């Protein structure tokens, strides 16, 4: 009877979230005992803003990975968008217009990613790796390897804009996260992404425009990377080719830790990704705060990645068995 109750509970509660939440809690508790600065607003600000760009892009990456693909090009798009935005702005263009143009360019890159993938029938990993490499080179050419600064004074105000003490990037993330959470469960287009990832052939035979679904996820991912690029310029008041180095791997790690399947499309969640990102942010912050060399940080993230994947695969198997038993 007791085990039956347990099993019933297991079906309802998402164990993966639970384990992640507990780990996060343990980390927070441990750190707050170790350092009296950990639970301060100032540190929270640092913690959040260290990983805010990753967090924004992880939302889009989750949908790409659920569709059965991957997007490595965000590491090229982020600095590229920052640079063209900075160039346009420093040459005197109206700031909102420069933003819109930069974002449209970013989305264009996502569009190209998908066209290359579908028209040439290439693997998303290869396509987005090439666009990433190409963009990184262009970034160097555009900046000549230097940093673009000397932004207009009116722009600098944007970086200082902190309603309720929360940064602009953070506000944007909160809004996006809420939208993604809701849309990913209820919106037709988002749900189509799950179908396409689960069984693309079946989706096509059901009369779904699968190409439109793929286009949607790649353009969205690129858009979010572009947005992260522009937000980076508000944070640093500059634009540099070195923005977003290695960011694609951190983003993918966050998505994977959150329980989105890397091997099987159609499985994953925005909530998981949000927890995964938070976990990474706290681990990073814990290393900085405790004075341990951050050289070791990736030992923890790497280890956690394996644990998380084992966990989600294991839970999936148990759940499948559970459902099958209840159906009997």
């Amino acid at each position, binding site marked *: 009877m007791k085990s039956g109750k347990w099993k019933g509970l297991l079906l309802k509660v998402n164990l993966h979230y639970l384990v992640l939440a507990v780990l996060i809690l343990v980390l927070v508790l441990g750190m707050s005992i170790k350092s009296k600065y950990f639970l301060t607003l100032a540190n929270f600000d640092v913690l959040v803003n260290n990983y805010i760009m990753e967090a924004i892009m992880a939302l889009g990456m989750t949908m790409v990975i659920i569709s059965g693909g991957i997007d490595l090009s965000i590491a090229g798009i982020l600095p590229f968008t920052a640079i063209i935005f900075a160039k346009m702005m420093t040459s005197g263009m109206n700031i909102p217009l420069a933003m819109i143009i930069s974002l449209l360019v970013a989305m264009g890159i996502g569009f190209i990613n998908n066209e290359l993938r579908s028209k040439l029938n290439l693997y998303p990993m290869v396509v987005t790796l090439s666009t990433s490499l190409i963009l990184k080179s262009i970034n160097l050419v555009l900046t000549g390897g230097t940093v673009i600064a000397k932004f207009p004074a009116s722009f600098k105000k944007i970086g200082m804009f902190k309603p309720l003490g929360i940064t602009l990037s953070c506000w944007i993330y909160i809004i996006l996260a809420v939208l993604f959470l809701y849309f990913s469960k209820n919106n*037709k287009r988002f749900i189509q992404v799950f179908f396409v990832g689960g069984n693309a052939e079946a989706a096509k035979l*059901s009369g779904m425009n699968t190409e439109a679904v793929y286009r949607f996820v790649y353009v969205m991912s690129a858009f979010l990377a572009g947005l992260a690029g522009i937000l980076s310029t508000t944070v640093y008041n500059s634009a540099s080719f070195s923005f977003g180095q290695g960011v694609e791997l951190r983003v993918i790690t966050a998505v994977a830790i959150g329980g989105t399947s890397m091997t099987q499309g159609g499985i994953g969640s925005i909530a998981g990704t949000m927890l995964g990102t938070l976990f990474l942010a706290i681990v990073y912050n814990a290393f900085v705060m405790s004075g341990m060399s951050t050289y070791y940080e990736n030992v923890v993230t790497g280890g956690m990645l394996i644990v998380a994947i084992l966990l989600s695969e294991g839970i999936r198997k148990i759940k499948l068995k559970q459902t099958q038993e209840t159906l009997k």
Partner: protein
Amino acid sequence: MSLLEVRKINKSFGSNKVLTDVSISFEAGEIHSIVGENGAGKSTLMKIIGGIHSCDSGEILVDGHPVQIHSPIDAFKHGIGIVHQELSIAGNMTVAQNVFVNREPTNKWGFINWTELYEKTNAEFEKIGVKIDPKVPAGSLSVGMQQIVEIVKILSQNVKILIMDEPTSALSDKEVDHLFQLLKKLKAKGTLIIFISHKLKEITYLSDRVSVLRDGRFIGTLDRENMQIPKIINMMVGRNIDQLYPEKGKKGDQKEVFRLEHGSGKGKFTDVSFRLYAGEITGMFGLVGSGRTELAYSIFGADRLDQGTMYLNGEKYEAKSPIKAIEMGIGYLSEDRKNLGLFLDMSVKDNTVVTILQKLCNKLSFLNDQQAADQTKGYIGELQIHPEDCLLSKVKNLSGGNQQKVLLAKWLVSQPKLLIVDEPTRGVDVGAKSMIHFMLRKLADQGMAILMISSELPEIIGLSDKVIVMHEGRCKGVLENVDLTEEEIMTCAFREEEDVI
């Protein structure tokens, strides 16, 4: 006026002419089967009607009006739906989401109305009298249930023409029964059902009419009175197959090759004992879930016995791994050709020699390619694998029957003493089936012991010397096949424990 009519349909893939001037008419409220050997063009014709392929020339008429069908969506507009051979269910999504994929009730912003979705799903299932929780992931259902979900998905789109492409190949007998009842119910409501299957018994049981295709041409339509299996086969292959099964073997000196005593494993089979003799084909009859495949796995070393002893050529034998089993002269031809048998993207040659790679290598582990090619060519000839020049073709480009022959070649090349064949003719057409049967008999005559697992009674009776009857993990009897009937085997399978002698 016919509900659906195809007129002079022609279709080629490249230089390969698949359909030539095919004309058939279908009536409302009938179950109309299409039969033909693999490659006869059945599936292509269905895909043309369903809008997946388009024809090079010819007409499709619905209710007497010519229609243009260029996509599955067009087909649905004309009330045509296909249940495909491969299930097109997204296992990660719920039953309701699968049924209403891409047609979910949404508000104008594209947000799904969940209550309405579940209500509509329940209503659809009620129409066919099936109870199911619309909120469970479709992937957690049995294959039979998934198929019903798929049928409901098609029916929910107001389909009046339902095409079913080999729907029973993955179903258990009980599920097949269920499906047939459903089809008859739909027929009574006036739906036209076009049914494709290799199982002629099913077809004669179910259909009102049968149309036969051969080499992409329409051969003829039979109605119920003229629907005899020999007649259908005759039309399918274009000649009489007087002898579907080879002669039984001669009683040899009964040299025992393999013996299992009181074998139990994994709760799938319990206390099973039997002997296999050189020169004999022993049939093992059992339905899905009778423990037969698990038993074969244990003999082949892919699983371990929990209890019991095995003897090979009189000596105690422990099945540690497939490598060991192959070394000891055991071969196992899997029932799941695509997933467990063949490397679909590799050549016929690579697939054939995979079991003897070690033997074909020199001391430095370099493969003797010439020898590999020679060996493979030998079997291509002997088994009449088609096309003849397929040595380097990818296996996935061969037809089902020829793939099965490659699978057989893969095991023959290792020259086993004991060959276990698990459903050796599943999804294979009549011609190739007969060919495989004769080959198995020839191998037995050459002294091989063969254990043939099958759930097809005619095959068991037609080919085996002895029949082991398995049911729910127990061996219910070993019958000598002297004028054995299907009834005797079924009675044996379902008899109560105390009757076992």
